[in-house]
C-alpha cells in the first residue's frame, strides 16, 4: 500500500519534475524533430517556388486576373455558395464550409479565382447564394465591367451588411 500511495503522491505533485524530465527527453528527441523541422521548411520553400513557377508560367502579369472574396463580420447573410462568371462564362463555383465562413468573418480573404483575360473590357458577374434575414433563401447577383490593362488585375467581392436596409449588400472593388 505504501508503494501505491507513494506512486500516486509522486504522480499528483511532481509536475515540476516533469518539466525537467521533459527537457532531457526533448534533448534526446531533438535530432528527429530537427530533421522533421528541416524537411518541413524545405517543402515550404519548394512549395513557394512551385507556386511562383506555376503563376509565372500560367498567369503572366499582363493577362492575370484574380478574384477575392471578403465578408463583413455581422453581415445579415449566411453564405452557402458563390458562382462567378466572366463574360457570361462560369469560371468558378464554390461551396463554403462552416470553418471557411468563420475564417471569412474573422477577417480572412478567400482567393476565389485566378485566370487570364485579354486586354479590354470584360464583364464580371457574381451570384451569392445563402440564407438572408429571417433565414429565408437568398440569391443575389452583382455585376461590374472591368477594364483589363497590361497589368495584373485584382478584384475583391465584398459582402457587407447594410443595417439601415437590414439587407446584405454586395460590392465589387477593383484594386490598383
Amino acid at each position, binding site marked *: *500500500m505504501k508503494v*501505491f*500511495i507513494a506512486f*500516486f*503522491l509522486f504522480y*499528483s*505533485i*511532481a*509536475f*515540476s*519534475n*516533469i*518539466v*525537467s524530465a*521533459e527537457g532531457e527527453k*526533448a*534533448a534526446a528527441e531533438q535530432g*528527429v524533430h530537427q*530533421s*522533421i*523541422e528541416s*524537411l*518541413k*521548411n*524545405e*517543402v*515550404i520553400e*519548394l*512549395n*513557394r*517556388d*512551385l*507556386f*511562383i*513557377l*506555376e*503563376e*509565372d*508560367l*500560367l498567369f503572366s502579369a499582363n493577362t492575370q486576373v484574380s478574384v*477575392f472574396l471578403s*465578408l*463583413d*463580420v*455581422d453581415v445579415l447573410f449566411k453564405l452557402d455558395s458563390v458562382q462567378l462568371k466572366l463574360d457570361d462564362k462560369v469560371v468558378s463555383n464554390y461551396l463554403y464550409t462552416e*470553418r*471557411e465562413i*468563420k*475564417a*471569412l468573418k*474573422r*477577417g*480572412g*480573404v*478567400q*482567393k476565389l479565382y485566378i485566370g487570364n483575360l485579354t486586354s479590354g473590357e470584360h464583364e464580371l458577374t457574381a451570384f451569392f447564394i445563402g440564407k438572408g434575414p429571417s433565414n429565408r433563401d437568398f440569391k443575389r447577383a452583382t455585376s461590374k465591367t472591368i477594364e483589363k490593362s497590361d497589368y495584373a488585375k*485584382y478584384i*475583391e467581392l465584398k459582402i*457587407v*451588411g447594410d443595417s439601415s436596409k437590414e439587407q446584405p449588400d454586395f460590392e465589387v472593388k477593383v484594386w490598383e
Partner: protein
Amino acid sequence: MWYRNFIKVLLAVSVISVCVYCSSARGEDKIEHQVKDLSYGVSLYNYFQQKYFSAITELLVADHYQRIKSADNNPALLLGGLYLSYDLHKQSSETFQRLLKNEKLEMPVAIRDQALFLLGKNHYQNGLFPQAESEFINIKDGLPLESEEERLFLMNAIFLQNDDFVQAQKTLDFFSSESVWRDYAKFNTASRLIQQAEEEKIILGFDMLDELGSNDSQYIENRILKDKANLALAYVALRDGDSERSIDYFNKIRLKGIETNKALLGVGWARYREDEFKEAVIPWMHLASSQTESDLAVQEAFISIPYAFEKLELKDQALHHYGLALDSYKFQLDETQQLVGFIKSPEFIEQLNPGSLGKEITSAVNVIKNLDPLLTQYLLPFLSSNVFQTEAKSYLELLHLRYMLNHWQNNVPALQMILREKRKTYKNKLSQTMGDESLNKVEVLTRKSRALANRVKQIEQSEDALKLATVDEVKQIELLEKSDKRFEKLKNLDEDISDSKNRYRLLKGRLIWDIETDYPARMWAVKRQLQQLNAAIFDMNKSMKSLERAWKTAPSDFNGFDARIANKDKQIKSLKQRIDQSIISQEKYLRMMALEELRLHRNQIKLYHDRALYAKARLYDSLMERH
C-alpha cells in the same frame, strides 16, 4: 507537460488577437474588416482555419511578388507566429529578430511587444530560458490581457526552473483575479515548493494547494486543478497518517472527473488505515464495478477488496474476490497480448492515417477517434499525452508533406506540356505576325514621311506660300490661269474686256493675298501634322522592335522555364525520398512508443496478477490448515 498544449492553443489566440485587432476598425457594436492587403487577408484566411502550411506559403509568395503594400509590420509578425505554430522555431526566431532589429521601422509598441512575446515563447519552447526571460522582461505594456497572463505564467515557470521561488511567487500577484493561468502557475509553484527540504517552503506550498483546493470557480480548468490539488493534499495527509483529513480532501474531488478513480481508491485506503474495512470495501467495490477496468486504480481496487475481506475474517468472500481479480487480470493480459499483435500489424498505422488526403493537420486529437476502441481503452492516458500527440502530429504532417510533393510531382508533366504548347503557339503567332504584309507598310510610311519633311523644309526655305494652298485653292488658281490664257486670245478682238480683266486681276490678287497672309498659320499646321505623323511612326517602330525583341528573347525565356521545372522536379524527387524515409522512421517510433507503454501496463497487471495468485494460495493454505 500539460501546459504545452495549453500554450499552443493560446498561441493561436494571441497571434490572432494582434492580427485582427490591427486589421480591423473597432466600432461600438460591430467590427468591420478593412482589407489592407489581399494577400495578407488570404494568409489570415488559411491561418484562421489552422492551415499553417498554406498560410506561410501565401505570405512567402506575396513577398516574392511584393504584393503586400501596407506599411505596418503585421505580415512579418504573422509570418513569425505562423512559423511558431507550425513548429518551425528557427525560422520563427529569425523572423522576429529581423523585425525587432530593423531600426528603420517605426514600430508601434503593441506590435513590438507582441514580437518580443512570441520570440520569448519560441526561446522558451526550445529550452533557452535565459533568452526567453530577457525577451519577456523587455516587453512594455502593449500586450493584450491574454498574452500578458501567458507571459506571467512563462516567467513563473522560468523562475521555478532557476529555483527562484521568491520571484516565482511574486509573479502570482500580477495575474487577474479570475485567471486560469494564475491557478496553473500557483499549482506549479506549490508542486515545486513541497518538494523542497526547508519546512517553511513546504508549508507555503501546502497553503497554496489548500487555496487551489478551495477554489469555487465554475470554469472546467480551474475545477480540474482544484481536483488535482485536493488529490495531492489527500495523499500527503494519508502518507502522514492523518486519514480523516485525507478523507476530507478526497471528498472535495468531483465524482465525475479525471481524478475520481484515484480519489475513490484513496478513500478506501484511508478507511482501511482506520481499520474500517467494511467502509473501505464500498468505494473499491464501486471502482471494481465501473466500466474502466483497464485503469490502474481499478486494478488496484480489484486486489484491495479481498485484502479487506481477509481483515474482516470473511475468507470465503476474500477467496471469491481473489478469483474475480485473477479472472480480470487474465482477461486483461489476453486482451493486451492481442493489442501487441495489433500494434505490430499494418492496421495500426492505417488507423493513424486520417484518410483525408491533402488535409492540413494541426492536431492529432482526432487520431484517437480512429483507433481501435480496445487500444484507446488501455492506453487512453498515453494516447492523450503530449508526447504521443506531438509525435502523431509530426507523422500526420509528414503525410501531408508527401501528399503535397505527390501533387506537384503529378503536375510537373502538365507544366512541361503547357510550356511546350505555349512555345508552339507563340512561335506560330509570332511568325504569322511577323509575316503580315501590313508590317511592310511601316517602311513605306517612314520613307513617305521623310520625303514630306524634306518638301516642307524646301517650302519653308523658299517661302513659297502657294505650295501650301489647299486643293480648292489650287483649283481656283488653275481656273484663273485658264482665264488668263483666254484673255490673251481675246486681246485682238474689238470687244471691251477690261471690266472682266479687272475682275480677274482682283480675284487673283485676293486669292494670292489670302494664301500668303495665311502662310505662317499654314506652315505651323503642316509642321504639327508632320510631328504627329512622326510620333505615330515612332510608336509603330517601337512596337515592331518590341515584337522583334520578343521574337528573339522568347526562346531564352522558355529555356528559363525548362531549367526551373527540371530543377524543381529534381528537388521534389529528392525530398520525397527523404520524407518517405522519415515516415517509415516515425511509424516505427510511434509503434515502439505504444508497445513500450503497453509493456509497462502489462507489467503492472502481471504484478497484480502474481500478488493475487500468491494471496489466493496463502488463503487456501490457511483454510486447509483450519480444516
